[in-house]
């Protein structure tokens, strides 16, 4: 949909290229974000999880798959019968729970990262295409997204895993596909608002191509809602992968993925509460942290959504 330039501008002419200082993140943002105590706590927890995940190879007291046959189902260190060698106790085959949780943190955060980047890139691209091309293409894309939204995400993810077969990678693919509609709809809505603005029309008049319009001019101005969605998407990705892992359709044992750990631990619920408690607590804290931060981001970036 490229319009021919009205007045072809010879290269080198035009207004002088003054290096305007790009508007950095407004200080307003940090003030609003910092004032939201929940968001700061969320950021703190995420920082902590990230540190644990990154330092796991060095700081984890034991290798995550090492089985200590003389220390099966040991309770946490502060309880009677616990040992300080295994701070959070051991599981049914004598693996150190703390070490597994730390490695699990790196797995869960990588899952979040990969799923969110994939769905953000693909979703934003589809949304841009729908918003710019309109017409048949738009209808096709949006109807497809409506169908996907009509299904509960876990159900659709299960369907995809049923086709691809269980496994961590397939679970991630499934979840990345399942969350696409949110990004597509957000991007399309933002694109449609943006394309009526003067700067887009102006740059079209000076001859900006479709690609340039889409990715350089319009996309950066649609980023605020997308970033909020991406943050919340982290929690959804981590939660859903854990759920699939728990159902035996995600990461397979002995991978120390939190949901898979919980599935393994289920049968020991009568004897050893710690094997069930800690992995779930890790999931809850991480998901909560991303939700808190997402709420804070939304308040700080998009004051309109604030009540």
């Amino acid at each position, binding site marked *: 949909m490229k319009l021919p330039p009205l007045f072809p501008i010879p290269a080198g002419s035009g207004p002088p290229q003054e290096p305007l200082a790009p508007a950095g993140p407004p200080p307003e943002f940090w003030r609003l974000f910092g004032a939201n105590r*929940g968001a700061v706590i969320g950021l703190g927890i995420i920082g902590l999880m990230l540190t644990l995940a990154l330092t796991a190879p060095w700081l984890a007291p034991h290798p995550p798959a090492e089985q200590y046959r003389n220390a099966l189902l040991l309770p946490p260190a502060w309880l009677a019968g616990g040992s300080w060698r295994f701070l959070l106790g051991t599981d049914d085959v004598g693996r150190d729970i703390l070490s597994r949780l730390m490695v699990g943190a790196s797995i869960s955060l990588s899952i979040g990262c990969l799923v969110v980047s994939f769905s953000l890139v693909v979703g934003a691209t589809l949304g841009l295409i729908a918003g710019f091309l309109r017409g048949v293409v738009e209808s096709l894309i949006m109807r497809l997204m409506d*169908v996907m939204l009509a299904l509960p995400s876990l159900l659709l993810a299960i*369907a995809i895993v*049923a086709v691809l077969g269980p496994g961590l990678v397939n679970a991630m693919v499934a979840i990345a596909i399942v969350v696409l509609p949110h990004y597509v709809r957000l991007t399309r809505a933002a694109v449609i608002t943006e394309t009526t603005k003067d700067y887009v029309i102006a740059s079209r008049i000076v001859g900006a191509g479709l690609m340039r319009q889409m990715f350089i001019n319009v996309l950066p101005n649609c980023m605020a809602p997308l970033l909020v969605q991406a943050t919340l998407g982290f929690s959804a990705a981590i939660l859903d992968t*854990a759920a699939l892992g*728990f159902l035996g359709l995600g990461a397979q044992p002995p991978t120390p993925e939190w949901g898979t750990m919980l599935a393994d631990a289920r049968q020991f619920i009568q004897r050893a509460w710690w094997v069930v*408690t800690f992995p779930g607590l890790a*999931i809850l804290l991480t998901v909560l942290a991303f939700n808190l931060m997402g709420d804070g981001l939304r308040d700080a970036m998009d004051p309109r959504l604030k009540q």
Partner: protein
Amino acid sequence: MIAFILQRLGLLLPTFFGVTLIAFSLIHLIPGDPIQILLGERGIDPARHAQLMVEFGLDKPLWQQYLRYVGQVIQGNLGASLVTREPVLHEFLTLFPATVELAVAAILFAILIGLPLGVVAAVKHGAWFDHTVMGLSLVGYSMPIFWWALLLILLFSVKLGWLPVSGRIAVQFWVEPVTGFLLLDTLLARDFEAFRSALRHLLLPALALGTIPLAVIARMTRSAMLEVIREDYIRVARAKGLPPWRVIAVHALRNALIPVVTVIGLQVGVLLAGAILTETIFAWPGVGKWLIDSVQRRDYPAVQGGILLLAGIVMLVNLLVDLLYGLINPRIRHAR
């Protein structure tokens, strides 16, 4: 209103085709021979294989196969389970009441607790009660319910021994299935011991499944109430000297309920997805557990049918909610 209904029904059509397309492609995307997938048999005699290909219409072009599939779906033929050889639709319908019972109990629990919590939080806006409720609801919203269910079992079954760990009713009871809802069936049979047992089995799963809707409903009620409380008619009601509880319960709540009803309707998808997890944990014999078992047994006709039916139910309920919403809020009807 009729135009509105027709328009909403029109929107349903592409979704129906989309969902059937997803279910249809399921069988064709799974690597392997479709006859083997559909019959679960290996090493079929080639002549028989060719005959079956014709019988299932698999020798036709894909689009004809799809149309054939849609035709079968409309007639209620969803194939037979590989494990039990029973028609998938029949299996689904036998198990479905259990899921409905669980989901209804869960949403009732969520509404009965969540609605008052949201109202009080809005009335006490900014006070510690408000902060506590909002904090807890954020935790509830972030809760991995499969873990939450395990914690409930840990506390109420393992530590306190109050409630059973799994199943729908204790094994010694046999109730003639009339409605399929055990609570009703036991009452109809006047077997109150069995009713008690069924109720005790229902409590924990309903609690686990209802937690996320509860958090959502509490949050939504609070923000809807906060918006309504600022309106002029509330000030008028107060100024007339109506007792404060009446202003809140009648004037404010009734108007705040519109968005809340929508949110409650939208929880159906959440409930069905949650039921898959909850039923698996509590060995609740409903369609969620059946679907997961079928995936693990590679019972593809069952998986295909189950996904199609569950999706269809979510679609229908969403449609109902939309129509209901148009009924209570006339502005929606004319907006689009």
